[in-house]
């Protein structure tokens, strides 16, 4: 808890499509209620100018771990949050980004940057400025300990809302058949 009594939250976006963050925004006007109880200190949806990742109560992560930067960020968040949530199928299982695991990384890069029909000036990006891709894409739990998994591609906004309100009430959310239905 921070000094103002609000729960401190960080959200992070690794290798995924941002659809889980979109689903989080789909709580719509309930966001007004949420910000009464929560300070979002680190997130792609707010403008943060802190020089360092803050220590928070809850870390919410979308996406899987695809490159060395993401691996580093995830480990740092794990050290600095009390409860780590894997939000959505990419974080939980690797999902679509991990489809590349059936191919060698070299083949994936070669197809994208050398062989695609529209590519006329080709090379494989390898400047140190771009992070190194890991040989395989990993779900979060292969890299760090995860406290709560919320599956779905993406999880429904109501399901995210349920999880957040349960956590705010000091309970670990217990999902049942009803609140895990997304259609």
């Amino acid at each position: 808890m921070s000094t103002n009594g609000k729960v401190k939250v960080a959200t992070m976006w690794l290798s995924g499509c941002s659809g889980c963050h979109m689903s989080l925004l789909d709580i719509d006007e309930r966001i007004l209620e949420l910000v009464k109880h929560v300070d979002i200190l680190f997130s792609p949806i707010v403008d943060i100018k802190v020089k360092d990742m803050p220590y928070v109560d809850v870390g919410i992560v979308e996406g899987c771990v695809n490159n060395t930067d993401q691996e580093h960020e995830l480990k740092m968040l794990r050290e600095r949050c009390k409860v780590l949530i894997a939000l959505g199928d990419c974080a939980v299982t690797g999902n679509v980004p991990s489809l590349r695991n059936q191919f060698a990384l070299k083949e994936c890069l070669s197809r994208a940057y050398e062989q695609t029909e529209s590519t006329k000036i080709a090379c494989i990006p390898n400047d140190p400025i771009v992070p190194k891709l890991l040989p395989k894409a990993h779900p979060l739990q292969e890299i760090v300990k995860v406290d709560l998994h919320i599956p779905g591609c993406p999880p429904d906004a109501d399901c995210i809302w349920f999880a957040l309100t349960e956590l705010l009430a000091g309970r670990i959310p217990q999902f049942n058949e009803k609140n895990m239905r997304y259609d």
Partner: protein
Amino acid sequence: MTSKTILINPVTRIEGHAKITIHIDARGNVDDARFHVVEFRGFEKFCEGRHYTEMPNITPRTCGICPVSHLLASAKACDAITGRTIPRTAKMLRELMHMGQFIQSHALSFFHLSAPDMLLGFDSDPLKRNVIGLVAAAPELAVKGVLLRKFGQEVIKAVAGRKVHPDFPVPGGVNKALTAEQRDAMLKGMPAAFETAKIALDLLKGYHAKNLAEVEDFGNFDSNYMGIIQPDGALELYDGNLRFCNAKGEIIHDQVPNAKYLDYVAEAVEPWSYMKFPFIAKLGYPHGMYRVGPLARLNICSHISTPLANAELKVWREKRRVQTSSFYFHWARLIELLYGLERVQQLLEDKEITSTDILVSNQPQDPVGVGIVEAPRGTLIHNYWVNKDGKVEKVNLIVSTGHNNLAMNKGVQHVARKYVKAKKLKEGMLNRVEAVIRCYDPCLSCATHAIGKMPMVVELVDADGSVVDCLRK
């Protein structure tokens, strides 16, 4: 001259999603500026071997902000493979869903991302300069914005079953008809949506009037433009041939059939970014730089087919026929938002919108399919090659934000020339760089990692490759 040894320490790495380097020559003048995209997922490879009917489920996972656009480009590529024309109602329902997407995406871009800068000021407290700060400062407006985005999302949900990643378009049509009740519920929400769109337009026009010098100069440079259009040259977002114009608005190529795109668009790769650099083939690299998206679409079209948006287009064009300042992207986006609302109304009022004639057979007939749509951020191209059983053998994708890659780099250079003095990065640079990139509303999951408010590190690199200054946030 290239940056050989840029060291990014662990602290900056946590914020390394959008990386920018400014390169200076021996005399300290800006030589180059680079916007580095740091994410690669490999769709062009890992889709190989899937059945083509799976593609509309897999490829939208490229982007959760514009999944509907990927879904439609994919479904259209699959339609081409089936060699069949989809029923009229199916086409209308797909466009209806697409307009829902434009409404939610453009509302998000304006209210959640751009409005905080305009209403709270570029230099206001960063911790409050976001949609949540907007809620505190102007709650009524913020709520209207949130509800307008919700309206767009609800259109998608009503038509397609769910808000993010629906599976509604399929090769040959769509898999769900619209009920009269659903139609009527959407029609009920229209007046409030129109009202909010008008408030947003008035706000933006007011900002332009008050900040004339800045908006006219902001990321202002010549480029070519590309997008799809209707047969009579009107604005089109779902289905049309390609048009390419130069900086003066003169047509370079017109009514190019989707299947011929490879004759007109080529791509280059640079070692320092995972995002490729498309260019107009005839003009070469990098001279063939072009822009796509709202600014480009309003520059290339002759008119807009709906009355309210067309009236706004005339105001937008009052000063000049072609707008080159990147700030005009925001205004163009709101005109398209209005067009989207008018199209929703028109489509809902069409008698056949609730027809159940929505699907034709989807056996693979043609080994190659190309599907092109205008996503909120610009032209989106899906191209699949399949074998006789419909198994995907090759995939090529050119995503919206990719088309703007050269232009975003040019925009950053433009800012850098003003803000780099005596080998130092001037304060205030980060916000301007971020703002110039945000004009393109980059759908960064197609490419990088931020919903516009990007953690950022800018490094100034000397002629010998060493980092002489660094700003980060």
